């Protein structure tokens, strides 16, 4: 049974992999994406390509539409216009859980651990995507469900140990520090075995030592083949590990380049990286269309 | 269709609508301040009616009987809060909601002991005569029901809009945490909400008794009707509840005049169902506050 599971998972993963090796090299592609809430345009005609294996960071002032971008990709918000393609599958027409099953997992800024479950159970929820036991087989404890449950438990513990939280497995989320909560949120997302990880401000609220640890972890994930798209206010940390930096302002893409290029552009540094964000937060109203 | 039927349908619809709105408003006040569904609301209605009948039969003038009954019902609202909800304030809202059911059972039991099972009635207020209008009839008490409901609604809007206590209640409803930080005692406001809801229930009971009769057991059906009005209109806004009551009343009236006899109640309920499915949060409701 176990063999069967592994075999099925291999097929699943290889199926994903094939999609990833697209001819044009695009892994995630946003084509002319816009979204507006009433008269407010939160994302304005953004084109974007993320390559497989990269760490991409979206930076920009408050209200630039960064978080909205992530929610568009993970399917939590509907597009007003444009297309999103992931491994040659169109994402903007399908529901969030379906997107998750294609290998895209998001970690929210406030993590949102399920407080009615232990940390381990939280991470086990992450394994939901690649398992399939339904009501009948779990309720009757059929061999398939039993094998799966064992696999889930092992996998979840393995993810927890990857992030170094295996000792806290049975603690309720409320007993964990903020950084531990963030890390367990990451472990939960990893349990879904994602190809693309969407992180919303992973460094938010962390102390210096914790930031370094997290950076190491993210790099390790990258080495393991996971593509990361993060949204970050703390530009220094983001630039340090990213291969690709996208600057977003008032919903529009301002720059999209390697960190070294961004760092050599004085205008960008002055406007977005030096903390002198004078126009940040100003809302952009679309002209009546 | 006959003009008299249309006219009668309108009169009945407004009348029923006012009754349901009056029943629903009590839910609105308590729910918006405390997020508890007071499933004992119908018992206040029953008490309002029963007490009015009792005092009236003792020879007290009708309006004075009504007044005393309403005051007692209001005080009982306070008792419900102090005795049941307040001690359980740390439990979940669902649990508190179901505690009100226990209170309702207790009130019903006590009412059975005091008054027995008999139905009682009241004459129309001040003996108002029936009005015949082109084949349709306005039953004497109906103008009172409509009028007093309107008066209560106006009073409520004035209370919420123009008095300190009313504004404080509204603040609690909108943002309990914020209200606390500016020094409003949420507990006190919850108490006021229950007293107000009890009073409203009492008024509703007193004004509908000449139309419907009253017995110890009418509380639960009244609760259900009021709950429906509140849900349909959107329990978070007073205007919503009134509209909900009207929709419910009109739906029943339409059903009674158009649908084959026997399927009236179903038809009215199916209209409600449609409203729910199209407007999940009720016809009128502030977003994000379900």
């Amino acid at each position, binding site marked *: 049974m176990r063999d069967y599971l592994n075999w099925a998972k291999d097929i699943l993963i290889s199926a994903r992999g094939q999609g990833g090796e697209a001819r044009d090299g695009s892994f995630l592609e946003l084509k002319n994406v816009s979204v507006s809430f009433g008269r407010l345009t939160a994302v304005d005609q953004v084109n974007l390509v993320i390559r497989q294996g990269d760490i991409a960071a979206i930076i920009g002032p408050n209200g630039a539409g960064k978080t909205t971008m992530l929610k568009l990709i993970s399917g939590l918000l509907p597009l007003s216009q444009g297309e999103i393609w992931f491994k040659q599958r169109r994402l903007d027409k399908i529901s969030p859980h379906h997107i*998750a099953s294609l290998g895209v997992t998001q970690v929210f800024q406030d993590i949102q651990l399920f*407080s009615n479950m232990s940390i381990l159970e939280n991470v*086990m929820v992450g394994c939901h995507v690649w398992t399939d036991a339904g009501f009948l087989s779990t309720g009757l404890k059929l061999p398939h469900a039993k094998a799966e449950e064992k696999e889930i438990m092992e996998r979840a513990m393995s993810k927890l140990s990857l992030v170094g939280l295996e000792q806290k497995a049975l603690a309720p989320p409320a007993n964990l520090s903020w950084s531990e909560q963030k890390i367990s949120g990451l472990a939960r997302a990893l349990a879904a075995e994602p190809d693309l990880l969407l992180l919303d401000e992973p460094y938010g609220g962390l102390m210096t030592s914790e930031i370094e640890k997290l950076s190491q972890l993210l790099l390790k994930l990258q080495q*393991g083949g996971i593509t990361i798209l993060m949204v970050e206010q703390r530009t220094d940390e983001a630039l340090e590990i990213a291969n690709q930096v996208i600057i977003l302002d008032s919903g529009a893409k301002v720059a999209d380049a390697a960190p070294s290029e961004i*760092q050599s552009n004085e205008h960008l540094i002055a406007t977005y990286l030096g903390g002198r964000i004078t126009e940040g937060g100003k809302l952009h109203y679309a002209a009546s269309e | 269709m006959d003009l008299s039927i249309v006219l009668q349908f309108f009169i009945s619809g407004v009348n029923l609508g006012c009754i349901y709105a009056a029943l629903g408003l009590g839910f609105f006040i308590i729910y918006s301040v405390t997020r508890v569904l007071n499933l004992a609301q119908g018992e206040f209605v029953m008490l309002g009616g029963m007490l009015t009948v009792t005092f009236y039969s003792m020879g007290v003038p009708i309006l004075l009987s009504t007044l005393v009954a309403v005051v007692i019902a209001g005080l009982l609202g306070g008792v419900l809060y102090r005795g049941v909800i307040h001690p359980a304030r740390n439990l979940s809202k669902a649990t508190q909601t179901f505690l009100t059911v226990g209170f309702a059972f207790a009130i019903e039991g006590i009412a059975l002991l005091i008054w027995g099972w008999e139905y009682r009635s009241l004459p129309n207020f001040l003996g108002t005569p029936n009005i015949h209008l082109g084949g349709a009839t306005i039953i004497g008490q109906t103008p009172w029901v409509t009028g007093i409901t309107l008066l209560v609604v106006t009073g409520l809007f004035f209370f919420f809009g123009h008095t300190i206590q009313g504004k404080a209640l509204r603040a609690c409803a909108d943002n309990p945490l914020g209200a606390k930080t500016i020094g409003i005692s949420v507990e006190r406001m919850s108490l006021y909400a229950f007293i107000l809801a009890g009073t409203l229930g009492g008024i509703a009971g007193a004004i509908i008794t000449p139309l419907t009769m009253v017995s110890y057991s009418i509380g639960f059906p009244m609760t259900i009707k009021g709950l429906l009005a509140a849900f349909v209109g959107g329990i978070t806004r007073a205007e919503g509840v009134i509209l909900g009551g009207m929709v419910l009343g009109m739906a029943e009236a339409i059903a009674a005049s158009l649908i084959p006899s026997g399927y009236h109640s179903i038809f009215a309920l*199916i209209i409600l169902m449609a409203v729910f499915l199209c407007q*999940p949060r009720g016809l009128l409701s502030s977003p994000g506050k379900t």
Partner: protein
Amino acid sequence: MPASRAVEQPGKNMKILKHTPVPILGQVKKTIELRRTKVEHLIMALVVVLFLTMPLFAGPYPLAIMMDIGFYAIVTMGLILLMGQAGQLSLGQAVFFGLGAYSSAILTTQHHLAPWLALMLAAIITGSIAAGIGRAVLRLRGIIVSGVTLVLNLIFFYLVLSLVDLTGGANGIINIPSLSPVGVIPDSLFDYYFLWIVAFLLLAFSLNLVNSRTGRALRTMNILAGGGEETAQVLGVNVMKYKVQVFTLSAVYASIAGSIYAHHIGCIEPEIFGAHLSLLVAIMAIVGGMASPWGAFLGAGLLTGLTELLGGVRVGSG
């Protein structure tokens, strides 16, 4: 600013994230096991055995109380899965109890099916209806769900009253055959065992469910107790599907209880569709505790048993 430390050749090092056994795993498993201790299993086994041997020392009246508790417990157990696990407030369980009872009654009295078959068909019918209702109703959230289910409850009540040809109207249906095979053991004894074995089987089913992939998925959407639908969705949980499924499951529980009830009592009337039954079951779930399916037995036992022990005979004079 330091240069990027990003690796140049992505995706070549899959080994890094490969699943490796964790030494602490065994210990964690043990701790989880400890939470369900042997003593506890023993007590549970004792409870089961006691329930099953009760007919040996108790007369029909206490057994009748136990029957009532059993019916309520099964319905409440479904509601605990729906309300306690998935966080959907339903005030319409009586609809499905009634559907089960009436389907069974109609299938056996008008179409002369065997009670066994009727019970199963009733569960399927009720489940299908519940799935349809769930799809429409569960798009809504929070307390509104309880409002809609309450309206549904009333609709079904009046529907049953009105469809006289099918349901017998207010008089209900009588002469519903018993589940018991004729003459083997007394009907009421058979019903008792049947009901309680079903109850315990459903309990086992529920307990398995709660501690599994499905149970966790349900808890992720419990916005009443620390769940979050968006989070659940980005983790791949098909929230709507699970809501509808658990709604259906709770309906099937109620339907099974309803069917057994109809075959046991032998006659049914529309009052079993009454909203007060839905309310009572919800109270039982809350009193018993919504975290565990065991709460259903506790809630049903406390409410039914105590009212019966305290009230009952000699209310009036005499």
